[in-house]
């Protein structure tokens, strides 16, 4: 496959993403006609007064931030999936599977219920989530060591994940506050309901950091695909690169988990498909996975919020229904290969 084909694939995915995001604005408990949506968007961009103030608020303060957040979260989760797969040399690695999301979730729940890191002026929930996800990912990488056994990694991740999910449930159980306790489900299954623009800003920062990192460390990431020993022998500073990847992945996961809870398997499915469809090397893999991941999560969220309308299904349920069977198939293949 040559460069221009890959570019066309990315362009096509971008068009698909725009179309999905735009049509997702129409989906929800209140159905909207295209005139209202376009008018609200025009009013949002130009700052003019909208014709219908209520519908404007629905579009601009509820649906638009939600759609933006699903696009960004899908992109971030897909890229983090790639980074973890490259870091561990294992196609089964993913923030949810390895317990990194659960670590972030425990940290975020702790920040809300116990006011952890409340002395920070801003972002104490994200910071606490970051500490949780960093602990989880450091634990998994340390326990894996130089072993390249993919099944061992997944089992370690399961253990770490079970521990942090128990911690999250425990923290919520300790909560005296009814509203906090009710959000238990939110932290364990994920949801984009109630997304606002400040959530979008957090996810956007995470995405920008990831894209910059992938661009700057393109050679290093590709070299890691050759195996850690080869990378080290080629003169790469293995420990430093691993540390940077772990820190940035943990930060990105915690940013997404803090605004959307646990959404699993996105980082597993999307890179898996894109690696076959586009390339295993990082430049176009990262780009195409980010676009496809945004598209996928937006679509999944649109279905989750309309299928059982007026009730919402947690988005984590949707992604697990699609992701878990693919995960099982991948395990079968990896298991046979070893």
């Amino acid at each position: 496959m040559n460069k221009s084909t890959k570019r066309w694939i990315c362009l096509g995915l971008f068009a698909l993403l725009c179309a999905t995001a735009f049509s997702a604005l129409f989906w929800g408990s209140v159905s909207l006609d295209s005139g209202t949506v376009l008018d609200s968007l025009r009013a949002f961009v130009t700052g003019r007064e909208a014709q219908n103030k209520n519908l404007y608020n629905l579009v601009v303060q509820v649906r638009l931030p939600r759609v933006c957040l699903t696009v960004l979260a899908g992109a971030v989760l897909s890229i983090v999936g790639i980074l973890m797969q490259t870091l561990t040399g294992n196609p089964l690695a993913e923030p949810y599977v390895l317990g990194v999301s659960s670590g972030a979730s425990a940290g975020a729940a702790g920040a809300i219920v116990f006011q952890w890191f409340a002395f920070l002026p801003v972002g104490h929930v994200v910071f606490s989530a970051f500490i949780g996800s960093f602990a989880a990912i450091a634990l998994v990488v340390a326990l894996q060591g130089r072993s390249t056994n993919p099944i061992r990694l997944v089992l370690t991740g399961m253990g770490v994940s079970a521990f942090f999910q128990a911690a999250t449930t425990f923290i919520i159980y300790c909560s005296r506050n009814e509203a906090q306790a009710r959000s238990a489900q939110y932290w364990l299954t994920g949801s984009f309901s109630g997304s606002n623009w400040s959530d979008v800003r957090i996810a956007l920062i995470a995405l920008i950091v990831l894209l910059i990192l992938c661009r700057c460390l393109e050679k290093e990431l590709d070299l890691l695909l050759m195996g850690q020993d080869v990378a080290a022998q080629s003169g790469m500073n293995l420990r430093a690169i691993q540390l940077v990847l772990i820190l940035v992945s943990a930060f990105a996961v915690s940013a997404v988990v803090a605004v959307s809870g646990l959404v699993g398997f996105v980082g597993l499915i999307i890179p898996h498909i894109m690696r076959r469809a586009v390339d295993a090397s990082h430049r176009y893999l990262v780009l195409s996975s980010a676009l496809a991941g945004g598209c996928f999560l937006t679509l999944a969220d649109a279905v989750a919020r309309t299928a059982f309308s007026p009730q919402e299904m947690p988005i984590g349920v949707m992604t697990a229904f699609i992701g878990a069977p693919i995960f099982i198939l991948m395990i079968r293949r990896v298991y046979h290969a070893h």
Partner: protein
Amino acid sequence: MRIEVSNLSFSAGNKRILNGVSAVFEGHRIYGIIGPNGCGKTTLLRHIYRQYPVHGHIRVDGQALESCAARDYARRVAVMMQSYPEADLRVAEVVQSGRYPYKRVMVPYGREDEAITEQVLRQTQLWDLRKRRIHTLSGGERQRVMIARCLVQEPEVIILDEPTNHLDIRYRLELMETLRAFDGMVIMTLHELNLAARYCDFIYAMKDGRITASGLPVNVLQPEILNATFDTTIPAIDHGGEIFIGV
């Protein structure tokens, strides 16, 4: 380039794997290390390519190995490992990644790297396969890709760990011819004594973490040395200066 190993010992757990190994590798020669499984051949190589810390027991051109910068060392020494990448990269991508030690952080591979990659791909008859994913190649072709990756690194030394395993006779000979044509030093472990006899300029025989014999193939590949090294009876025929080992 001169690599001098002096009195190198190494233990894993309480098992002694290397026991006071001393050896010198220098000049444009092909060095073969032979010995039974578990004799410490691979471990010795891993020390030379810095997978294990060497604590001052290896010097390169008189300089302690650990004081060489990893990147500088990678420009001089290329290694072909026993493993292949798990990821399904394309042939050209794998080969080009050998240019890594020459690139600074954040500088992508450029024209010069592409030119060298193309030249090596043509030289190793991989040009037609350059866009293939490596998992679709045969074992022999994949081996050729890994050798090409070493050549692209433009090293002074190539280190290979049992490169002829799993290869049929054609690829074995092809590999050895490629190494013979390489303008530099080659250090490799070999199971196949006939290949060692035919292609190596110097041989170290190892057993139980020690070097038991060293010298020209004619001198080392003698029945009494081989029998002691491998604990078995190996007939070797000296056919007018060329050794044949009947196994």
